């Protein structure tokens, strides 16, 4: 059975939402959204998802090929102001794609380089990252694992709180911060190393550990029971096809690489 790297990453990311129950899952971007949708259709049917507009759904919408929002499986109105009520309750898990991630798990989507007053590249702004990061669980999705994303120093703009002792607010401990998983095109990681160090949990098929270490701008730990990232099952691949009938997932990673690397 063949599968693409994007499909492998979607399945790996969907496992982030296992056993969570009635938590609002928000995947920002096509592959993260596909991952959350897959989880709701497989490992966590009690999960909650929206239509990315203003309604909670009892079953996720496809990520491609939908002509209109009419006829979707609405559960309740869920406008943006109400999303914040849910965010601040803590019952949410976001899977997002930051431009930079540092050794503390702090992230950046606001701006790169230059000065804060005149950045070299203005990105989106901090958006909801500060509130998300101190309120609920977050996982990160990285389409291209490189030292440009996993930066050596601190992020240029720290948009989300991480495990940085120098920035820990008074009255808070690391237990108040909940960074779950990091899914990249090379591996799956978490922050359960010593002192919340980032840690490799599984390597994608055919990826050597050295490639992960070379492409990360800081030291990472390796889980004692590090495994190979499991290949998607036939059931998962069928559901992915159902959720993305136009195969837009094939356009998300450069050259749509296969999930099993060809031996050199």
């Amino acid at each position, binding site marked *: 059975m063949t599968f693409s790297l994007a499909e492998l990453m979607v399945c790996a990311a969907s496992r982030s939402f296992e056993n969570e129950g009635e938590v609002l899952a928000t995947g920002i971007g096509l592959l993260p959204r596909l991952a959350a949708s897959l989880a709701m259709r497989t490992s966590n049917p009690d999960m909650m998802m929206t*239509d*990315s*507009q*203003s*309604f909670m759904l009892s079953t996720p919408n496809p990520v491609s090929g*939908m*002509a*209109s*929002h009419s006829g979707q499986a609405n559960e309740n109105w869920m*406008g*943006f*102001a109400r999303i*914040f009520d849910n*965010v*601040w309750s803590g019952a949410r898990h976001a899977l997002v794609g930051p431009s930079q991630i540092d050794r503390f798990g*702090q992230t950046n989507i*606001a*701006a790169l380089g*230059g*000065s*804060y*007053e*005149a*950045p*070299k*590249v*203005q*990105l*989106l*702004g*901090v*958006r*909801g*990252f*500060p*509130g998300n*990061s*101190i*309120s609920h669980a977050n996982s990160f999705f990285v389409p291209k694992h490189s030292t440009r994303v996993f930066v050596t120093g601190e992020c240029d*703009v*720290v*948009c*989300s*709180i*991480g495990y*940085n002792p120098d*920035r*820990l*607010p*008074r*009255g*808070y401990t690391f237990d108040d*911060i909940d960074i779950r998983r990091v899914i990249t095109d090379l591996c799956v990681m978490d922050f359960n190393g010593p002192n919340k160090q980032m840690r490799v949990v599984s390597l994608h098929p055919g990826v050597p550990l050295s490639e992960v270490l070379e492409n990360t701008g800081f030291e990472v730990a390796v889980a004692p029971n590090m495994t190979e990232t499991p290949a998607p099952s036939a059931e998962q691949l069928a559901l992915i096809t159902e959720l993305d009938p136009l195969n837009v997932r094939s356009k998300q990673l450069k050259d749509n690489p296969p999930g099993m690397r060809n031996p050199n």
Partner: protein
Amino acid sequence: MGDAGAEADFDTAFNLTGMIGNARMNKCVSAADAVSVIESGMTIGIGGWGPRRKPMALVRELLRSDVSDLTVVAYGGADVGLLCAAGKVRKVVYAFVSLDFMPLEPGFRKARETGSVDVREIDEGMMLLGLRAAAWGSPYIPTRIGLGTDVITRNPDLQLVDSPYDDKEWVAMPALNLDVSLLHATRGDARGVCEIASPDHYMDDWFARAANKTVVSVDELVPSDYFHDADVARRVYWERNLTSHIVHIPGGAHPSSSDPLYGYDMKHYKEYAAALAEGGYDGWSEAHLGDSESSYQRNVGGLEAIQTLPLPVY
């Protein structure tokens, strides 16, 4: 609609109210008259979200005015981008400025990268809290949001406070008091009752409540009995005494969406980005802005083309 059109709407609105005896308030004015409540140096709020239901015709009227030195509070899209590009902005209070499908807003991006505007960059939810604090007459609302991030370090005027009830530190999100808010609604009557029929009204109600004056552009001007239907009345998110002026401008959200009437104009956003890149603000304004909303609409393909833009699917 030009000014002549707005006057015609005035008469229609009066006839439609069906009043006997003392005349009710009539808040219908032209876009130019409505926007004239904004003076240089003021703090304005703009409703909508990114490329969705922005009061763009009112923003264009602001672009045609000589107002400058504004502080703009918004969930920003091309409203913020255009005002920055036109040199009308001193400071932007924002969590993002983006056009969804075009993540980086070109006018705002240039303003930031050249350091030409001051910023107060805050979280999306902090902005909501700031608007609520203003609406409720509170100096601030305590929140966890922002702790441990550069929102605190980059906003030295944002204070951390102690709580009388625990030993933690809290961010005191200050009230975002607005002089004027600009909003776009689906329908409104001459008294300022406004319906937002879109899937989400975003934070528009809080923008109205946080402001001294609120100007609302509407796609459709309706008689007051339109609101007698309970389902319609449930889509009215603020009371009419918060609406200062109503401006009837069919297509007035273009190029942003006014769901369910029309979607956003992806083609125009791309033309806008290209025009800014090639000829700066002057290049865009010469090609598109015109001296009135009717000339603007002619420049972008006409009202009928706007009203048939397909609704976005997310």
